[in-house]
């Protein structure tokens, strides 16, 4: 069983100090800089950590890297029998406009992942954190880690200052494609632009629920703006954005292409075909209907066989269980694909 989405957040900025150049440690101390900001998972919000492990996660003496490694081993890997766990760290270096600091922070997080996580448990795989707001700096970070065993993808926040299909971002995606690694686009981000196309919402609820629309906008941008025509080998997994919206997006994108494809002449096939070829989705959150039969209809509509990959999304609160297993409604043949075959193929695992 392969879990594609477990979060290994940095407990305290100080944990990164051993991996930061002394200049930036001094600068950080002198300026009281507390690290990147983001609205995506505020510590106190209920969904950020499942209520049953909140004390284990933030409690006195437990908010450190070693304790979090043990927590994931004890509450997810061992009980579910996970053989490979892909770690997705949401340290939002793109929220730091000071790009040199952002780049050093990314290097520090990646080194910390290598030494504190990959070395701690051979089941772990890590994601390369990059200053994605500056493709030049991001490319350097990708090249630094792309051949390091244990790093299996490049992580990008779904919220960005321009959509990822825009050609300003080509340096970044060229490096990802050249590395042979997939990109993972995950929930959240802090680019300093509103998280909707109609301005800033007032509640966390709106930002959280509304993240699905940002995922949709990114898929649309990457397909229509020809990212996969420029980099045909590029593969993307969408983490923690829900997937039940996929059929409606595919239909709408197909329909628009019928009428407006002279806008984007490089798009030679149905947009839905591009989506099914290049994108995968993590399982949680399910955003499920009350009626499981309707969920099966959705799977049929999106032809989901190859598209879904199992995830617990630990420690985020998605289901009743701390580490939700495979949902009851999932047919047996799909179960094996989702939990094993799809992620094994996507990450080229032995």
């Amino acid at each position: 069983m392969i879990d594609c989405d477990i979060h290994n957040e940095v407990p305290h900025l100080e944990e990164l100090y051993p991996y930061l150049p002394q200049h930036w440690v001094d600068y950080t101390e002198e300026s009281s800089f507390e690290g990147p900001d983001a609205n995506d998972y505020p510590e106190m919000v209920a969904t950020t950590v499942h209520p049953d492990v909140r004390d284990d996660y933030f409690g006195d003496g437990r908010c450190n890297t070693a304790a979090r490694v043990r927590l994931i081993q004890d509450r997810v890997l061992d009980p579910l029998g996970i053989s490979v766990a892909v770690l997705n760290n949401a340290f939002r270096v793109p929220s730091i406009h000071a790009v040199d600091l952002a780049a050093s922070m990314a290097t520090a997080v990646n080194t910390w992942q290598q030494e504190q996580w990959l070395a701690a448990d051979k089941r772990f795989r890590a994601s390369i954190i990059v200053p994605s707001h500056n493709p030049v700096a991001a490319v350097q970070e990708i090249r630094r880690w792309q051949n390091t065993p244990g790093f299996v993808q490049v992580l990008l926040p779904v919220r960005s200052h321009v959509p990822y299909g825009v050609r300003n971002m080509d340096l970044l995606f060229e490096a990802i494609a050249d590395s042979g690694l997939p990109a993972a686009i995950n929930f959240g981000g802090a680019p300093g632009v509103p998280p909707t196309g109609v301005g800033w919402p007032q509640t966390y609820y709106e930002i959280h629920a509304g993240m699905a629309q940002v995922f949709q906008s990114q898929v649309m941008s990457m397909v229509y703006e020809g990212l996969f025509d420029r980099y045909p080998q590029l593969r993307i997994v969408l983490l923690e954005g829900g997937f039940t919206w996929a059929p409606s997006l595919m239909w709408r994108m197909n329909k628009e292409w019928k009428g407006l494809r002279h806008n984007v002449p490089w798009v030679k096939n149905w947009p839905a075909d591009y989506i099914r070829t290049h994108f995968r989705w993590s399982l949680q959150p399910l955003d499920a209907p009350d009626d499981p039969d309707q969920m099966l209809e959705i799977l049929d509509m999106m032809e989901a066989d190859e598209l879904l990959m199992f995830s617990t999304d630990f420690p985020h609160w998605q289901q009743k269980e701390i580490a939700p297993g495979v949902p009851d409604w999932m047919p047996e043949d799909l179960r094996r694909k989702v939990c094993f075959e799809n992620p094994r193929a996507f990450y080229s695992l032995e």
Partner: protein
Amino acid sequence: MAISLTSPLQDRTGTEVVRTPIIDTDVHVYIQPDDLERHLSPFWRDHYLNFGKRTYDGMLFPRSMPMAARHDAWPPNGDIPGANLEFTQMQLLDEFDMDYAILTPLTGTGEVLNFDFGLAHAQAVNDYQIEDWCAHDSRMRASIIIPYEDGPLSAEEIHRLGNHPSMAQVLLVTRTREPLGSRCYWPIYEAACEYDLPIAVHFGGVGGSGITGAGSPTYYIEDHAGMAQSFQSQVTSIVSQGLFEIFDNLKFVLIEGGFAWMIPLMWRLDRTWEKLHKELPRVKKPPSEYIRENIWLSTQPIEEPLYPHQFNQMLDQLAMTDRLMFASDYPHWDFDNPLRAIPSTVADGERRRIMAENAAELYDLPI
């Protein structure tokens, strides 16, 4: 036109066909400069001639065809599409034997940066609809245009025309400066409810910043297809700010957004609300319940699933066939023909609701 209209399925059986009433809930009228000048006061005419209609800049996604119109929608006398009453009557209402048409002027009024001129512009467009269109065709109903970024000025215009028999609704656009649940728009809702007028939100607009949640994309196809995401953001805001608990009888009509996206949106809003409801004290029940009660959707651009049976599955999942209303979007290039827009697999009862009955109830139009 003497043809009888019915579902394509019935057409092929050869049996006696029953005429299906049609209400088109999205018919665009445009106002040409001379008509605008005629309806402006001398002061604002002078302002218009000296300063023009200034709006947000840097928002250009050049469209694929002039005025985004059907090539055959340009009236022979040189008027622009949607600006000639007789031509719209001939090409749309008479051609398809329509019972009613809801006029939805897209005049960019809400994007005028000078709100005072925005109000004058709205008044001119509204008088133009009443005097130049509805007065000449009893099948037509108008939409109250407002300078929606200014709540109190907008309420003023709603109070001026709220009781006028030609007015069917208040019209905004999808992309506003702030999400529509924001308090700056509440005076609009309060005034509209006083006259039992629905708030229609039509495809389009710019609010002055990026048109997605990740900045601005590049092409018109993204601007156009991406409107579905902006509609979702607005529904999320409207419901989560508790508008339907604050304003009795508040109704929203979402025009030209399609509707398939509403299904996963309702699921996500409900599942997220289960965990985060403490943040939304005004929201007393699952968001999907407010949506199914208080939000109407127009059909165009109708989503086309990969396989025909999935269209009916989609309607079942949506469970809003009492809220769907046919729209043609005349005279735009992506016009939906009322004879062909609804797939033949849709049952006759549902088809009748979608083609006319739902709109007849909402807008109080006898059919």
